[in-house]
């Protein structure tokens, strides 16, 4: 990484310097109305080479999975195989346009059809939609579907969604956006959903439950089937948040646990690039009772033709055209490359890697829910007085590792949420462990080193509190 501080483009500016030489004006000059003119227009003045170097140096400060280890919990920052890029940039995909119509897009629609089919089979669903552009977008689709089903059943009064406190962080916001009320239920000491609290929350206003399995504390919800039965018996539907699908893909089909509708993130489990805002895809799969309500259009086979069609009672469109098509090509490539057995191995290795890290770190970094983890685990960073998780995270940057997710989930104080993914080798995991243990020693011997970290970056510890309280959003030079 380029660690030199970089001046702002305004600071590199020099009066009169230009990047392009415009030809002389060969049409009559017309004066602009004075009312539209500004006395001063503050733009940087630079030559082309300075601009190129400035932005190239900035790009060298990027932290990415292609440069460094990135154990960001719940984000599944796995390596994205380069063959995905080769496939997505084939001229047939790259040069098509959504408005050319189905007749000239048979290959593209067939790919979507096959991808839907693979994703349906992975989850045990009868149908699915590739419309949503992100995980939370998929959640919104699912909760709107639950709402639509309840209304169609004559149960419009069912507007309450149960969200366990171990759920993915976006779940309560999704319910609110869908116009539902959220009831939070607590986890028991084992990190599992408290069944007594669940039963108490079931009444005739219940629309459904949003459940993340494995949960954000990285443990498998063993009572999943029972939870689904309780919710179904009370007239509710079960939404599965597939943010953590990487731990179970190819091993179990969530629909068989009683999940009615679920999203999974192609940009996590199915190796398409993310981090920096996408583009993503939050495929939504549905059980028979909800399939007609899926967002559309979805790809269907009509005789020997492939067409895009809106499901019969669809909640409508969620995205222009056909979603993020380039992402679909990458995910399809990945699934075809791994096959069913490969996907299973992927999930097994993700779980193995997480348990390896947990076993090596938990004596120093306490784990609140200590049972065997799935793809991630949540440790705590407050094992020395005066040292916080934030200090450990900042110090990790000095050693070239991206910090884990911190202070989430909220049910673990001083959380450090570590997800190694299956794509890291043992040497990288060991190097990470050695650094974590070294930081723990530094925390005791030389806490200031941690308080002031990072030391080896273009800028040091940023004052996040001042930035949040008094944000300066414009350059004031």
């Amino acid at each position, binding site marked *: 990484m380029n660690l030199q501080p970089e001046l702002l483009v305004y600071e590199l500016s020099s009066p009169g310097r230009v990047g392009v030489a415009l030809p002389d004006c060969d049409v009559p000059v017309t004066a602009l109305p004075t009312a539209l003119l500004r006395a001063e227009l503050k733009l940087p003045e630079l030559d082309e080479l300075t601009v190129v170097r400035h932005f190239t140096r900035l790009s060298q400060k990027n932290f990415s999975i292609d440069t460094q280890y990135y154990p960001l919990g719940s984000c599944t920052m796995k390596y994205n195989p380069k063959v995905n890029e080769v496939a997505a940039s084939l001229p047939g995909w790259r040069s098509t346009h959504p408005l050319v119509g189905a007749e000239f897009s048979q290959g593209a629609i067939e790919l979507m059809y096959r991808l839907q089919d693979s994703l349906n089979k992975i989850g045990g669903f009868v149908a699915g939609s590739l419309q949503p552009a992100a995980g939370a977008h998929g959640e919104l689709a699912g909760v709107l579907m639950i709402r639509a089903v309840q209304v169609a059943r004559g149960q419009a009064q069912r507007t309450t969604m149960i969200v366990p406190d171990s759920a993915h962080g976006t779940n309560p916001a999704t319910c609110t956006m869908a116009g539902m009320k959220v009831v939070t239920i607590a986890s028991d000491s084992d990190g599992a959903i408290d069944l007594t609290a669940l039963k108490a929350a079931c009444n005739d206003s219940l629309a459904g439950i949003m459940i993340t399995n494995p949960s954000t504390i990285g443990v498998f919800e063993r009572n999943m089937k029972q939870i689904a039965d309780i919710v179904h018996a009370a007239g509710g539907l079960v939404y599965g948040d597939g943010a953590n699908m990487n731990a179970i893909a190819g091993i179990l089909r969530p629909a068989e646990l009683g999940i009615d509708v679920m999203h999974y993130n192609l940009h996590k489990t199915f190796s398409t690039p993310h981090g920096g805002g996408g583009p993503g895809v939050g495929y939504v799969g549905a059980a028979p009772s909800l399939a007609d309500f899926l967002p559309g259009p979805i790809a269907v086979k009509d005789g020997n033709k492939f067409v895009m069609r809106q499901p019969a009672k669809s909640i409508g469109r969620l995205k222009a055209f056909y979603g993020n098509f380039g992402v679909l090509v990458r995910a399809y490539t990945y699934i075809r490359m791994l096959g069913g057995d490969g996907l299973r191995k992927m999930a097994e290795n993700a779980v193995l890697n997480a348990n390896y890290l947990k076993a090596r770190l938990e004596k120093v970094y306490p784990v609140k829910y200590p049972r065997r983890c799935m793809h991630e685990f949540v440790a705590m960073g407050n094992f020395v007085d005066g040292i916080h998780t934030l200090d450990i995270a900042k110090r990790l940057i000095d050693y070239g590792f991206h910090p884990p997710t911190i*202070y989430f989930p909220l049910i673990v104080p001083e959380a450090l949420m570590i997800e190694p993914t299956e794509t890291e080798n043992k040497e990288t995991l060991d190097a990470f462990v050695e650094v974590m243990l070294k930081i723990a020693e530094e925390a005791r011997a030389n806490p200031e080193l941690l308080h002031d970290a990072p030391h080896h970056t273009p800028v040091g510890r940023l004052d996040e509190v001042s930035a949040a*309280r008094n944000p300066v959003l414009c350059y004031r030079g």
Partner: protein
Amino acid sequence: MNIDKNARYAASHEYALKAGDVFVVGISDHAQSALGDIVFVELPAVGKTFKQGEAFGVIESVKAASDVYLPMAGTITEVNGNLEADPALVNREPHGGGWLIKFKAANPADFNALLDAAAYETEAAKE
């Protein structure tokens, strides 16, 4: 942990303190410490009525955004205007200048059902 022995507490970490014919509500010292540096406080309009345990506002820290719940049913009579410019008051003086709202209780006797300081301390220590 500083604790106001005259106040009573909800398990969700809000306190209620009797002040004449209204109650003052804030968050406990334990809660402000767990939240970390508070950067934004959103409070309700005066005159708004809430049920017991209903969310009346949001406290945002560098770590998380959390709802705050009214410990007893009632109607808001005053909000702490100083918090808009200085949300860190909640960190510095949770039991003093960092109070959130004042409300008129629907049923003032609800106060007696809240946790007293000792019971709240025991509850908070479990976390």
